[in-house]
């Protein structure tokens, strides 16, 4: 029975992810010890505690809400990355597609005065088109999707800075708040904010992102389209041989991936939780953290829900460490270490299977030896 569980692929993925998390935190702790051994234990606990940092329950719940608000875009980015990864593409351009989503949704809301539904639709279309560039370059020009993705990230960043320059005060680098005159662009809460002590930022974005995770899971596992996409990922040539349009599949999957990432941007920026700073020098880290979440979740959409929450939990937790000794980037360091360790997941699974096989082999040999001994005894009699 136990062996059955141990051999189960889902269990192995979970186990490997847990090893990555534990090792990541342990290495983070060691780094903290090196910086200043006095407060290291406390600091790592702050990172893990996050909103439990507050002693009052209502503050805890409110801040839990804030973490959830920021988890929704991260979950969307990780879904975007894992969707493309199932087709054998590493969509590091998700960060740029996310950035385009910010640009279009905020511009539609602030400059054109649209409601949240058209904002999201236009953002999704823009993200899809931006993803399509990567797909076209990959399938027709054989350009490595990682390099073109990174180039497009920078182009997206500078374009966003340039375009959103039109919807901000000349005195501040930040874009206007949505709640001043574009209130109809703010995502509705449908009463969800009452669950979080009246935290108005908690909107339908959170349930929607979970819905998307389920949708991605269904599309990938239960439909012909998802099967074709996965087949293309396993072996492009075999898929082509079977009559699948492998070029179209690559482009379509990157378009879907881009649309998901852009929607993720709407899920954060249309809650008015954050404003875009037009002097940003780098694309938002959410897109890159999405890589960590996708791999930590074992490349499973449902797993991504939990891993995204965990990554966001420690990222927010990093802001509670004692700033006189440490910096908030310690959580970035931990997530980066976790991604690095995720590279070893394949090896961990392999080692586990080897161990199980060996113990089984030993048992089988033992059983055989006993059986042989028994028959010999039988022969003597």
């Amino acid at each position: 029975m136990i062996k059955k569980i141990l051999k189960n692929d889902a269990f192995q993925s979970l186990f490997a992810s847990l090893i990555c998390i534990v090792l990541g935190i342990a290495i983070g702790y060691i780094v903290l010890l090196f910086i200043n051994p006095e407060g290291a234990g406390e600091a790592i606990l702050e990172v893990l505690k996050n909103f439990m940092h507050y002693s009052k329950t209502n503050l805890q719940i409110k801040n839990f809400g804030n973490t959830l608000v920021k988890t929704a875009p991260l979950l969307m980015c990780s879904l975007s990355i894992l969707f493309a990864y199932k087709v054998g593409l590493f969509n590091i351009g998700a960060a740029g597609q996310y950035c385009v989503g910010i640009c279009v949704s905020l511009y539609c809301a602030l400059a054109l005065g649209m409601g949240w539904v058209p904002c999201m639709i236009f953002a999704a279309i823009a993200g899809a088109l931006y993803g399509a560039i990567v797909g076209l370059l990959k399938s027709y020009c054989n350009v490595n999707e990682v390099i073109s993705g990174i180039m497009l990230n920078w182009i997206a960043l500078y374009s966003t800075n340039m375009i959103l320059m039109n919807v901000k005060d000349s005195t501040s680098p930040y874009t206007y708040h949505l709640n001043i005159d574009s209130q109809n662009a703010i995502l509705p809460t449908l009463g969800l904010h009452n669950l979080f002590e009246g935290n108005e930022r908690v909107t339908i974005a959170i349930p929607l992102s979970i819905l998307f995770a389920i949708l991605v899971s269904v599309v990938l596992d239960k439909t012909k389209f998802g099967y074709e996409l996965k087949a293309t990922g396993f072996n492009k040539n075999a898929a082509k041989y079977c009559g699948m349009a492998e070029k179209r599949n690559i482009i379509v999957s990157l378009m879907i991936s881009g649309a998901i990432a852009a929607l993720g941007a709407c899920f954060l920026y249309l809650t008015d939780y954050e404003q875009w700073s037009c002097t940003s020098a780098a694309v938002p880290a959410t897109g890159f953290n999405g890589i960590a979440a996708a791999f930590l979740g074992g490349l499973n959409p449902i797993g991504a829900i939990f891993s995204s929450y965990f990554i966001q939990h420690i990222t927010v937790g990093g802001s509670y460490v004692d700033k006189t000794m440490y910096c908030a980037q310690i959580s970035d360091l931990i997530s980066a270490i976790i991604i690095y360790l995720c590279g070893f997941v394949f090896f961990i699974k392999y080692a586990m299977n080897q161990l199980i096989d060996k113990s089984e082999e030993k048992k089988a040999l033992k059983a055989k030896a006993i059986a042989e001994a028994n028959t010999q005894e039988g022969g003597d009699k």
Partner: protein
Amino acid sequence: MLLLIQYTLVFASVLILVALGGCFAEHSGVINLGLEGIMVIGALGGALMMRYAPDSFGAFGIIISVVLAAIIFGVAYSSLLGVACINFKANQTIVGTALNMLGTAGATVMVKAINTAANPDDVSSTIQYVEEKKAFIVNIGSFEFNWFMLIAVIGLVAAYVVLYKTKFGLRLMACGEHPQAADSVGINVYKMRWAGVLISGMFGGLGGICYILSGVSEWKFENGVAGFGFLALAVMIFGQWKPSRIAMAAIIFGFFRALSNVFFGFEFLVNLNIPGSIYNMMPYIICLIVLAFTSKKSRAPKAEGIPYDKGQR
């Protein structure tokens, strides 16, 4: 105009060094997407050396020690890629990306820790090296010659000689083209790939310190190296994995990168009234266009990106 040439040459030197790093790794069969992270860590090593080097070193001593520090940091950091991708057969794309994130996060944490330890109110991630930077620059008229331009040329010649004229280089390239064949004639593929990765770490670290010495006299580590590691990979692809062509490609890309720094010095460019952001985007756009035209018939090493498995046929 002189300023444009100067910046072009400095950025071209960075791109040449880093692209050569990518070139060695890929010829041995490992795709090194972590070059960006390696650059950051190399830059960290060099910057720390500049900060803590005693004055008694003199200009020459500072150059040597900073270059060595950058190389040591770069090589040590690239070994993380080697362990994961060569010995544990990890996915090279994931590990490379992880190294990029780890490089920026790690360097930021380290620099901030040093700054905060020195002064509890200082929470910046900046290292200043105004004085030490002067050691690297020789003024010829109004042209600032940077020693890294020479280092890039030396690196280029050395890379060419090592790759094409020595036993080691030819064996290295064999491991990237057909590792099984190389193994069958007694070449240790794992060792060769390790050599490729460590050499790329060396070049990456050098490129990193060169990058942060190119412009301003302080560096904010939170910003990383602005996609230069990936631009260098594009230079390498455009250069078809050949050192001589890489040099040409690097100068073209360096020119467009330099333009975004100095465009306001040219009256006709300012009169065009194009926003500065467009110039910032230029190198990346050019890069995409160039890649679109050159990737189709690419001469990439055949076995790159595939972990070597002895048991595989």
